[in-house]
């Protein structure tokens, strides 16, 4: 996907990211995208919304959709715990700036990943859908995954065009399983 090459420049030094835990995996999100990190607040359920984005939260007077990347990556979805956080991100949707929240099981640290350590996602060995992974990196003998947020939200927008009228009760397949 062209997004991958355009959003990553391998020649320049390093990348400032915030690392977080989702299920059993560690993800990294560009620090520049993050507006703030919130403790869990009251989440309003949106009946009939796709599994990926069933909630709304109030972020300083703005109604912000709350997305769950664990649905996209087929990760275990634990309950809200003491370490759960909401990351508020500035993204662009349908060409317009949008504020989106994503849920994290825990937020670790702000750190720097050198561009040299970035690799494309291997074809085998992970369960992540490759079109939603921008790159992976080796850090301290573990793997950090950088999700391709533009691709993920673009895909969510195209699937919500056909709204789910009946409640599917959590059995809905994540989009990538339908793709393959």
């Amino acid at each position, binding site marked *: 996907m062209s997004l991958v090459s355009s959003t990553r420049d391998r020649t320049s030094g390093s990348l400032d990211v915030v690392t977080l835990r989702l299920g059993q995996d560690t993800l990294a999100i560009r620090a520049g995208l993050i507006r703030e990190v919130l403790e869990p*607040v*009251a989440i*309003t*359920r*949106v*009946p*009939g*919304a*796709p599994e990926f*984005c069933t909630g*709304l*939260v*109030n972020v300083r*007077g*703005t*109604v*912000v*959709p709350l*997305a769950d990347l664990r649905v996209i990556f087929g990760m275990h979805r634990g309950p809200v715990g003491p370490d759960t956080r909401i990351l508020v991100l500035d993204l662009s*949707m*349908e060409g317009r700036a*949008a504020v*989106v929240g994503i849920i994290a099981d825990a937020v670790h640290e702000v750190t720097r990943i050198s561009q040299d350590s970035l690799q494309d996602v291997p074809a085998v060995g992970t369960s992540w859908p490759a079109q939603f992974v921008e790159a992976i990196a080796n850090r301290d003998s573990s793997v950090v995954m950088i999700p391709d947020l533009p691709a993920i*939200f673009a895909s*969510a*927008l195209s699937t*919500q*065009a*056909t*709204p789910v*009228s*009946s*409640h599917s*009760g959590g059995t809905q397949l994540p989009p990538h399983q339908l793709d393959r």
Partner: protein
Amino acid sequence: MDEETLAIFRAEADSLVESLEGGLLALQTRPGDRALIDQVFRDLHTLKGTGGMFGYTELAAFVHGFESAFEALRSGSSVASSELVAISLKAHDHIVALLDGQSSGDPDAILAGLAAAVGDQTPIPGPRPDVAPVAADIDIVIPPEPQPALRVQPPAAPVSVPEGPASAPAKSSSTIRISADRLDEMMDRVGELVIAEARLAEIAAKSGSPTLMSVTEDIQRLATGMRDATMSIRMTPLSSITGRFRRLVHDLADQTGKPIELVLEGEDTELDKSVVEQLAEPLMHLIRNAADHGLEDPMTRIDLDKPMAGTITLSARHSGAEVLIQLADDGQGLDAGRIRAKAVERGLISAEADLSRNELLRLVFAPGFSTAERVTELSGRGVGMDVVSRTISDLRGSVDLDSEPGQGTRITLRLPLTLAIIDGLLVEVAGERFTIPLAAVEEIVELPEILDDQQATARLLDIRGRLVPYLPLREVFGSPGRPGPFQKIVVVSSGGGRVGLVVDRIIGSNQTVIKQLSPLHSGLKIFSGATILGDGAVALILDVPSLVTRSKRPSPSVNRLQEAYV
């Protein structure tokens, strides 16, 4: 030139160009009107001046030539010939193209045509420093001014009114220009204020302190006043977009060879700025449809004993918390038989479907009924009607259609007055809170116990002898658990339809600041937005028109269609 300066120039140029177009079109009906000729001249002159000042030299040079033609007209005693008006409109289009940075057409040919049309005198336009530019994002009128500020030109008015654009310079003293962005920001701030006020009210009620309560009441009163004042500033008359309809009708009459009269009624009806802006496109589409397919050609009309010129009437009026906008033509009307045939062909209904005439007519709004996708295309009655319908429902309005064969077609748009703040009724369903627009609520009744049956087949409620369908919201929302014993039914109405919404509890009414849903959720038609409650939680706002549609249980053949609407 920095962007801000450029934006100011554009705003000014746009309104000058619009005023120019209005003047030219008015000249068609009143070719000898000096005031109009003067107005056109002044618009051109100001445009030339500002264009030159802001570095649009090509524009300034072209407008100079254009202006010369009108200078000749002014100094001579000649009237504006229809030929001159026609070529002037072309010149106007060229100006618009130049402003947009395109160069279409042949400026020299246009200028030569203009010169020829006024008999080729070559006058020298004198400077006119007395002319103030007429430009406005929003004109705010401070009373004793008797007329609404936006340049309203009574269409084809029998009396020649020398006001309109020409008189605008005189108004500059009592109006100020505000950028639309600042108004939007002001509305956002008022929204925040209303939310903060709701929090305060909740804290005050809990505290029980009489002093705090009384201050809270003051704040509430002030916030309500502030809200009303801000919303009234945002109100814009429909006339701010009707200028382009006149031009459109003029062009359509040319293209189709049908004489068309456009009648505008209630142009001073005001709606929220953002609603008015978004209405332009669907209305232009409906006008195009009416001219192209509604009206018969002149010969046929004479055979039918109709006036040769077809009439398209655009009218607007207030009706409660809604504005009704109607577009009617006196053409041939819709052919239910042909609609039916086409719908069957497109697989929207089965060949043996039993539909009322009204249901058949509504099929033109179905997605997939029309062949062309784009709003701008001109073919087949019903083209892009689904786009019209969608735009209106995005504005939380509804569309009705009525047609008599041989008599014409009437399309009624119902729109809310504002998109920003409404009075809402807060209800609870399975522990979750939702807001219903209060303007749509007719009454609230207890759910009779015998009706509280999940398996009931006929969900109809008898309200003083009238049967009203009802929808248990728990079911609509897929809520878990069983309801308690004392459920309520909120009866809401929209576009003539009614439905009872079964809720667990009524919490109360409150001012509701509407926040748009993100693109991730905007596909969910049963919600029109969200709002923030006093305790900071988010509540969804129910979309009454789509719930009413959902409650209608048509024959199975129309089910597919019904789903497409909801």
